[in-house]
């Protein structure tokens, strides 16, 4: 048993922290939160330094580390600013993952390196207007016509959709399959293909620099070799992806909580009321102690899930526990942080309200916490 990060992991954490602290300035964070734009320049800069390709093997221009190392980067980024942190760390979301596991060598060589280097942006289109938590059936269909697949349908809440160059799209390829999820497949598509249209979604509560959009797919034709892996296995590939990405969502949550906690701690030490720093009051200090405990336990769950993923076979329950718990902690801790700031906490300039707004998404995306609990229940029932 060893709870210590290795020297190399510590260095990764330090490097990510230094980059984020110098680049994610509070003013930039506020600016991007207001204008809801993807920080492209920042993303490229982070990518050139290797921060966005942690889990991609070196042969595809990535860094060849595991989920744990990726989590360390994501945590430090979100600790400094959740909006910019999430946006930058999700620039090449999921596509390299799925191609590494199931793509052909040709697909890997074509699509992964530009994503690893930050030259291109990826989007994974699973969710549909009528299918969020339940993706066991897709309304989007792909029909084979000659050497091509013709895709029709629409996708909703797709991270990076308006700016992505490379898409994976989950489609129903066998409408008669029972259960229906055995008839789903994943396809690669590229920006600019006729029939692929993205619309930006405005007005999100948090992570506003991370752009989200919907996709309208009308007679989108992709070559037959854009099928990822085997036909009718798409649903399983999607679930597999979540085992890893959900852990990084937990890391986002831990980072968000840590960042808000540090701000609150600092405020409690310097803000004076009734002639003394407010940290002298147990109403405040006990709250801080509770926050610290929660963050530490969320972090341990997250690191453990990451460690299992990297060293053993993926364990969906460990992943779901980390994701559901850490995201709840992020909500509670950021809420407490605002409370410690009092009236100031309600103002954008003091930043903690933004952390709170950003925390909420970690309870929702990549499977709501209710879905996580279902996974956990499945697991404990089998034990």
């Amino acid at each position, binding site marked *: 048993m060893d709870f210590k990060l290795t*020297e*190399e992991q*510590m*260095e*990764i954490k*330090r*490097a990510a922290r*230094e*980059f984020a602290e*110098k680049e994610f300035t509070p003013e930039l964070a506020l600016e991007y939160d207001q204008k809801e734009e993807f920080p492209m320049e920042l993303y490229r800069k982070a990518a*050139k*330094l*290797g*921060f966005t*390709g*942690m889990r991609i093997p070196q042969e595809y221009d990535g*860094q*060849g*580390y595991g989920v744990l190392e990726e989590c360390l980067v994501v945590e430090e980024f979100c600790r400094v600013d959740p909006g910019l942190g999430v946006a930058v760390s999700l620039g090449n979301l999921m596509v390299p993952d799925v191609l590494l596991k199931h793509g052909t060598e040709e697909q890997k060589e074509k699509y992964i390196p530009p994503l690893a280097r930050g030259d291109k942006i990826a989007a994974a289109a699973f969710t549909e207007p009528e299918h969020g938590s339940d993706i066991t059936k897709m309304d989007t269909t792909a029909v084979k016509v000659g050497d091509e697949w013709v895709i029709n349908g629409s996708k909703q809440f797709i991270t990076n959709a308006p700016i992505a160059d490379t898409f994976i799209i989950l489609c129903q390829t066998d409408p008669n399959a029972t259960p229906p999820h055995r008839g789903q497949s994943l396809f690669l598509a590229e920006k600019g293909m006729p029939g692929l249209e993205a619309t930006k979604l405005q007005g999100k509560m948090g992570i506003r620099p991370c752009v989200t959009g919907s996709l309208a797919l009308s007679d989108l034709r992709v070559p037959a070799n854009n099928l990822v892996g085997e036909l009718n296995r798409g649903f399983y590939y999607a679930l597999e992806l979540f085992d890893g990405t959900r852990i990084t969502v937990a890391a986002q949550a831990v980072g968000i909580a840590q960042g808000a906690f540090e701000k609150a701690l600092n405020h409690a030490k310097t803000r004076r009321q009734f002639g003394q720093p407010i940290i002298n009051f147990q109403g405040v200090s006990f709250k801080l102690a509770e926050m610290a405990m929660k963050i530490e336990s969320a972090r341990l769950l997250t690191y453990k899930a990451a460690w299992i993923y990297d060293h053993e076979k993926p364990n969906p329950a460990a992943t779901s526990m980390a994701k559901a718990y850490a995201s709840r902690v992020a909500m509670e801790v950021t809420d407490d942080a605002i409370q410690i700031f009092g009236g100031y906490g309600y103002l954008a300039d003091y930043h903690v309200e933004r952390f709170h707004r950003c925390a909420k998404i970690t309870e929702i995306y990549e499977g709501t916490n209710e879905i996580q609990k279902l996974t956990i229940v499945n697991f404990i029932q089998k034990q």
Partner: protein
Amino acid sequence: MDIIVCVKHVPETAEAELKIDATGKGIEKAGLVFDINEWDDYALEEAVRMKEKFGGTVTAITVGPEDSESTLRKCLARGADKAIRLTDPKFASSDAYATAKILHSVIKNLHFDLILTGAQAGDDGSAVVGPVLAELLGIPHATMVKKIEFTNGKAIVNRELEGGLEERLEVKLPALFTVQTGINEPRYVSIMGIRKAMQKEVKVMGLADIGLSENDVGEAGSWLRIEKLYVPPVEKQTEFLKGSPDEIATKIVEILKSRGLI
């Protein structure tokens, strides 16, 4: 070109609140963040850029406790090829002079064309180690350098003088330069750099390995012995303006009005 960079692991104190410790001779280190000395950061970057341009090696070297390892690791991740950490309890309380002697005892056995170091350290601000080391090695030096170029086996450097003035000097190599901030823009540590640095080792040496005696190092080998630290007396009694930003701004406006400034 083989370049040695002398670096120091120092606390970042520009925005930190400092407390004098119980001995009265140091500051409380708990809660302070340590990193590479700001001036050395520029020196390292300059060395790595030269290596990238001309080839050769960069060796980072420090005198300090075990913790200084992280600063050396950072140097390795940023492009240094080798690192040497000089650590020994006997080195504690070494001043700049003793530190220069320790560095000299090791560097004299290494091949180098150039030695770079920061113009000063953010903690003691002595600006002594570089030129003393040059004297001990018998090589020319220049301090507070803002630009380095090479022609015909010589270096042409710009030194910073006062009031925005600079002077250009021609210096024979091998030489030692102490680098002023702003000479370049230090790069970030990259993940690729960290991975590469993992293949590189930090060599650790103590008093027994460097051929100096106890009397050469620590307080015994130093020019200076600290008697006490204290908070500087205020030159001017500042009147602090308090209140909300709005109230403060109103007070400032009143002051400016009363002085006829607006």
